[in-house]
């Protein structure tokens, strides 16, 4: 009889091998960028243009993520917790832009915000086309369908019985939502925020279409990557890409730390890998 059974059975081994393949591939991908970008990185950090676009990227990605969540959370709530006519249809309309090329979404935005409606907005001081606002808008539109879909899925997984119990203890719908539904979908929401923010940083199809790429005005890091690539300046381009990687790295560290599972919540913490 095998006394000390190997810790890895075949299936586990298989998953670990796949993981190693994915990691190798991912590292190669990253290295290919970093190796090209590294020699120009110092230069990039000294460039005012790059510093401007770092700020603009962080600013727009953050604001668009906030807007996305502010729209998506109520929408996901309404889609999963209330009943109104044509709900399924509404849901499909909301999710339809999922597979649109970002370029098309950008063009669509350009058409909408160049219409009389957009002109009216502009005269009221809310400029979108060729403006920072447009970057935020483009990122929001690109992300919203996903974000809604993921938060909806998360809310659906929450045990509604706990919400009922919370209600019977005196919590209004709003309080039930804040104290039960939201905390119980915390992990999915953190993941979705990371998605939205990362996509905000990396998006350029819709942005270029709606706001163009005016240096030092609407130039995000990603636009900078694009412009430098178009100029033939691959080094500077990869330097900008490396900056994005660094930002991404920091944000992943931070969110990993926030999203850590509370091991105190069950008896299982000690029990991994039987």
């Amino acid at each position, binding site marked *: 009889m095998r006394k000390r059974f190997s810790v890895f059975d075949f299936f586990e081994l298989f998953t670990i091998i796949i993981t190693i393949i994915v990691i190798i591939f991912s590292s190669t991908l990253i290295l290919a960028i970093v190796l090209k970008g590294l020699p120009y990185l110092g230069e990039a950090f000294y460039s005012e243009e790059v510093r401007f676009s770092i700020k603009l990227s962080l600013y727009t990605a953050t604001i668009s993520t906030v807007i996305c969540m502010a729209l998506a959370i109520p929408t996901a709530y309404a889609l999963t917790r209330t009943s109104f006519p044509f709900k399924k249809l509404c849901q499909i309309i909301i999710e339809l832009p999922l597979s649109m090329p970002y370029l098309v979404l950008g063009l669509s935005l350009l058409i909408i915000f160049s219409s009389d409606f957009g002109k009216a907005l502009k005269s009221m001081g809310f400029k979108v086309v060729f403006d920072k606002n447009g970057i935020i808008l483009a990122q929001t539109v690109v992300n919203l369908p996903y974000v809604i879909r993921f938060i909806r899925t998360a809310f659906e997984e929450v045990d509604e019985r706990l919400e*009922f*119990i919370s209600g*019977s*203890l*005196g919590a209004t719908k709003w*309080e039930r939502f804040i*104290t039960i539904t939201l905390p119980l979908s915390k992990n999915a929401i953190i993941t979705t925020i990371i998605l939205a923010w990362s996509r905000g940083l990396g998006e350029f199809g819709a942005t270029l279409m709606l706001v163009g790429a005016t240096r030092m005005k609407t130039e995000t890091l990603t636009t900078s990557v694009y412009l430098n690539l178009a100029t033939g300046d691959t080094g500077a381009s990869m330097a900008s890409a490396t900056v994005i990687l660094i930002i991404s790295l920091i944000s992943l560290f931070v969110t990993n730390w926030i999203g850590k599972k509370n091991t105190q*919540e*069950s*008896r299982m913490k000690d029990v991994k890998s039987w």
Partner: protein
Amino acid sequence: MVNSMVEIKKYSIQLGKFKLKNINLNICEKEIFAVLGRTGSGKTVLLESVAGFYRSFSGEVTIQGQQVIDIPLEKREIGFVYQDFGLFPHMTVYDNITYGLKIRRKDKEYKKKMADRMAEILSIGHILNQYPGTLSGGERQRTALARALILEPKLLLMDEPFSSLDPATKETMYQQIKKIHEIFGCTILFVTHDFNEAQIMADRIGIMVNGELKGIRKSADLFESYQDEEITEFLSGFQERRMCI
């Protein structure tokens, strides 16, 4: 006659193949009413119905004269101890217990005071910082009890509230609940499998048989003879044993 707290009239509901049939029950203010019955006979469904959990039924359930489903959930002021506890997994025992107080915007000290009082009554002081996932069965049950009791509800619905407790702890619980009942003056409707418990605690007892509530009577008269054969059969097992001891 004293004021009625819960009135159930011609209440019927179908859930899958199971039917709760034509329930009629009047529970007075401050009364303690116990429901006995075989497993799967519909006791939990009855309690859930009183709490206004279901929407498609016939007949009516009123609490203090108001249709229960017309009262917004958060205004019903019903304490419910669920058979499977229904604790909030992401909150500590302390946060679970004081949940209702937090919702009512009570200040920290008040919450602390009440939680400590509850913890003492139910002897769960040592687990206030644990999460429900780490608790023992009996600890979960008492946490669920504490969460419902802390709000001093007018109506307390308890679904087998002592089933996970050892006899010694149970005894203490009976005394504590009786004391609470006296102080708050709440009405209690509870389900149990323990005839002894029903007799100790309740003023009246009803027996649920296949979705029908039968043989409602004073708890002292529980073992008096019944017309209904099903009830007799249900009680017989226990009676036999009681005799042989």
